[in-house]
């Protein structure tokens, strides 16, 4: 509904410039998307701050919630570089964030949200020349939340920076580097006999997940950056 105003939860001009999915398929993916791209974050904003704000759009009583958060990292330094992906369990929650959270402040910066096609391996890293986001390459202003322009970050933020630098020092490339976030509830085998053969506890989920992955890969061909 709404003939009088434009709803805020429509896909915008945001796009993954390196995706090879055709537009029609992209639109279809977006119309079911559970993932948001979050931009204009401070380099110091933590996942827990993001979790706190975005959990306000979650519908746990409808089977929803925050599935995972993928922090965008500088390719070289493995430190946050001002963006992230928030993945929910349901599409409605992603839309609610577009309507109620996009354009409000987090950590005293106005953040923007966009519906995303879904996280792909490698997308957690910045694509700018020097490792961060492209927008920070050519920025002319002084932005203390995004590294300023020199090493003159504010006193209070020095300690935060130290913590931040440690936090993702162990971040890895490649498949499996990012947690899945937990799937829907599944029947747990209770009969003892079966368990003796040391079945991998998650194998059912693993299969569906890799099946999905294969399917996506067919669609995407090569989406690596």
């Amino acid at each position, binding site marked *: 509904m*709404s*003939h*009088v*105003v*434009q*709803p*805020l*939860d429509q896909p*915008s*001009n945001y*796009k993954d410039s390196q995706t090879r999915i055709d*537009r029609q398929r992209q639109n279809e993916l977006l119309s079911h998307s559970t993932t948001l791209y979050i931009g204009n974050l401070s380099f110091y904003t*933590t*996942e*827990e*701050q993001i*979790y*706190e*704000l975005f959990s*306000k*759009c979650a519908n*746990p*009583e*409808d*089977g*929803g*919630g925050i599935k*995972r*958060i*993928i922090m965008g990292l500088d390719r070289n330094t493995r430190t946050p570089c001002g963006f992230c992906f928030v993945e929910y369990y349901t599409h409605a929650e992603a839309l*609610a964030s577009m*309507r*109620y*959270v996009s*354009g*409000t*402040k*987090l*950590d*005293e910066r106005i953040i923007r949200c966009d519906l995303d096609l879904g996280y792909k391996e490698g997308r957690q890293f910045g694509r700018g020349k020097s490792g961060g986001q492209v927008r920070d390459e050519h920025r002319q202003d002084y932005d203390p939340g995004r590294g300023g322009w020199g090493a003159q970050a504010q006193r*209070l933020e020095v*300690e*935060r920076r130290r913590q931040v630098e440690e936090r*993702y020092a162990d971040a890895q490339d490649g498949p499996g580097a*990012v*947690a*899945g*976030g*937990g799937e*829907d*509830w*599944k*029947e*747990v085998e*209770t*009969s*003892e006999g079966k*368990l003796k053969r040391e079945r991998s*506890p*998650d194998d059912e989920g693993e299969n569906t997940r890799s099946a999905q992955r294969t399917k996506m890969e067919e669609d995407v061909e090569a989406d690596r950056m």
Partner: protein
Amino acid sequence: MSYDRPYRGGRRRYRDDYDDRRRDIVESPQERLKNIIIRLGEVDPVQEIFTVEKHIRELVPPLIPNLSESFHISITEQPYKIPFYAALLRRLHEPPVNQDETSLGKQILEEFWKGFQTYVDKLMWRETRHCISFFAHLVSAQLISAESFAALLQSFTAVLDEFGISHGRAKRAALCAADGLMISGTVLTSAVPTIFDEIMTSIQTYTESTNSGKWIVQPSVRLHLSSVSVENADELLDSAINTLKALESSGFEGPYPRPYADYPQLDMMLFTPYSLPSLLVPPEVIELDGPTETEESDTKKEEWPEYFMRLFSDDITPDPNTPAGYAVRSDLLAIIDIFEVNRKESARILLEYPKWTVPGTFKLKPGAPPPEVENLVNYEWQLESTLLETMLGASLVLPDSSQKQIYYDSLITEVCKLSPSTIGPAVGKSIRKLYSSLADGLDVEIQRRFSDWFAIHMSNFNFQWVWKEWIPDLELVVQHPRRAFMRRALEYEIRLSYHDRIVKSLPEEMHPPEAHTLPYQSPGPDFMYDDPTKPHHDAAQSILNLFRGRAKAEDVITQLDTLRNTLEIEVSDSENVNSLIRFITTQSLLHIGSRSFSHLLNAIERYLPLLRTLASGGMTASAGAGNPEAKADILSASASFWKYNSQMVAIVFDKLMQYQIVDPTDVVSWTFLHVNEIDESEADLKAPLSLSTFEWDLLRGALNKAVGRVSIARRKLALLRKEDDENRARVKANMDVDGDVKPEESVQENAALTTALKAFSSLTKEQKAALSRTLEGFISCLAPTTTTAHPNPKAGEILTEDSWHNHANWGKEEWNAWETWGWYRHFCRAYSPYLRNYAATFTAVSFARFEGQSDPVSDLLQKIWNVSIGQE
């Protein structure tokens, strides 16, 4: 202003090759006309009626369906403009030059009726209600016959007589009838004198039956009273009744703009008012095609009477029990509801609202040019305060607001951004008013939402609040609602920001630990075995090193067996060793995952087999569903690891449930049995067990997980059933054609269905167990049996009137007991749709021991329960 801009939103102008949906489509003349109609009154509503009329008449031949649709969109999406659309339609009723032709207006009205009929048939109540307001204005403008309109309203009051009607349906039908009567009162009651009493009696009879419902959702709590006692809040239907009474005694001197009243009378010799066809409001839809088992049908949200809080006096903001106040309130609530899709536009329209009211309703902005027209009324309310009161009022409705909490929070932020200088003081006053009412029995859920909004709001406005004005309240007892509010609000601010930043925003008096205002320390982890001088430091280090080296889960399990042998020598009790190992392992794993939420997920995911082994109780034997003590240990170890960070406790619990290490029922049980063991220094303060927002959040998380899983399983099942039916139909069709069956296909699908059914039934059981355990937990807190270690005398003592009158002198335990009652009350009403499914079982199991007993505690426990499940 150009009429060619279809939207006023900002982003639209952006264009790039990616987005072909946003390309300007060339507007056809009909579309252009539609947009002109929708945008009636951008500058001056009264003047523009003539311009728009001209546009309509100039586009020949007229396309009636397009015109009718334009009216529909305009009226259902911009109800604050209804009087002006009524005037426009009145203009279009001017007799055509050729007297044999039907006027344009009448043709539109006849077509419009069909659309209205569709709304009613589909039970689209919002649209229905706005159309009725439109019709009511048309009755006043003599375009619709009063008799036929009275009959229409009667078909809505007839709904109120239905047996076992849901409150939601009754409320909506009553509001339709009330609105129609309020707006058309003068004309309607002179044509059909009995209609007023008829509608009044009907609504009043209904509302008299809602007293127990009101009792459980009233915003201020009086535990000693079994009747409704509300100050500073108004129930929606009560306001409608009071407004109708006031209108009748003033001869329906209405507060509505009536631009059509200035037009010359239609010649009644030549003109016959439209007679609305008769109509029946269809019954509520009961899903007949769904599964037959009652538990599988979707649990509908229960609706309760709606109380809206007042924050200002009647000279500042309108009293919704008066005609003008009710009209303003209805319009504002409609705007908030309709424009939920775009909070920025919503804020703009709210701030522009005065132009749609009778001049003099709101005070002019300081410095605004003097009005061109003379004030017709003299209320001069403050717009900003009215907006704040309405937005907050809607967000604080119990047990649930109609939109998500965060929508109202963000809407307030937008209104503030559009008009910072004027709205700032209104926000401050609203916060102070709510703060001051905290100790007067403000409902605990409202307190929670208030602190939530406060933190979000401050987060958007540089955390600027004059905390120093609350310094004197540091003298109050530590559990006093005001002090609890300060702690909670600051905790939420810290979650959205960070510790040092928030400390900086506070006066020195609130800094020291003795002030009990800030958390004791910044919200970091607390690894029990970190300190080399602490016992088991080395054991923990060995496990930690395995995790750090990304050892395989099986290797860690083997190592734990070795460790257990070592520890058995050191520690005497074997039960303790198991527990100790669970603590060491869980804490070490969380330590690995303590850097961020993602690290936590990675740690859990990598060591799922280990966690499952831990949860199963034994160190090696794996048994499916786990062992309750083992799971409680995992939860205790997690909660104590994050004891300085309540947000992380909730997150870890949520993910442990998500990965099926623990079940929702485990979390519920843990919360009631073990929560006070986390921080030993505070254990004493927590006996007898009381519930604060922290504990409630854990319970809510667990209950929502249980409920959410059932709803996922239900959806899955419905989908499989549908597919199964389709397949059967297809197979049958194939058989009919060539007699060829593919049995293996249908067998396979039935297997999926069987699995889904099985999952659904075990999840439903789990949901029932979680609810039942919560109910039990509350009862054992508030009415502990005589044998329990911690009797809770205050839970009964505070129920007397005398005690309440003395609440200014209440101590910590009184407030603890009061808050626990509050969360019990909220649990019952918030989960009432689910509790109702098991009403008989739960009543028998949980309340049996109060049989034949009558004391204030058990009476109140049972009354709250009975009201919530609809048995009182």
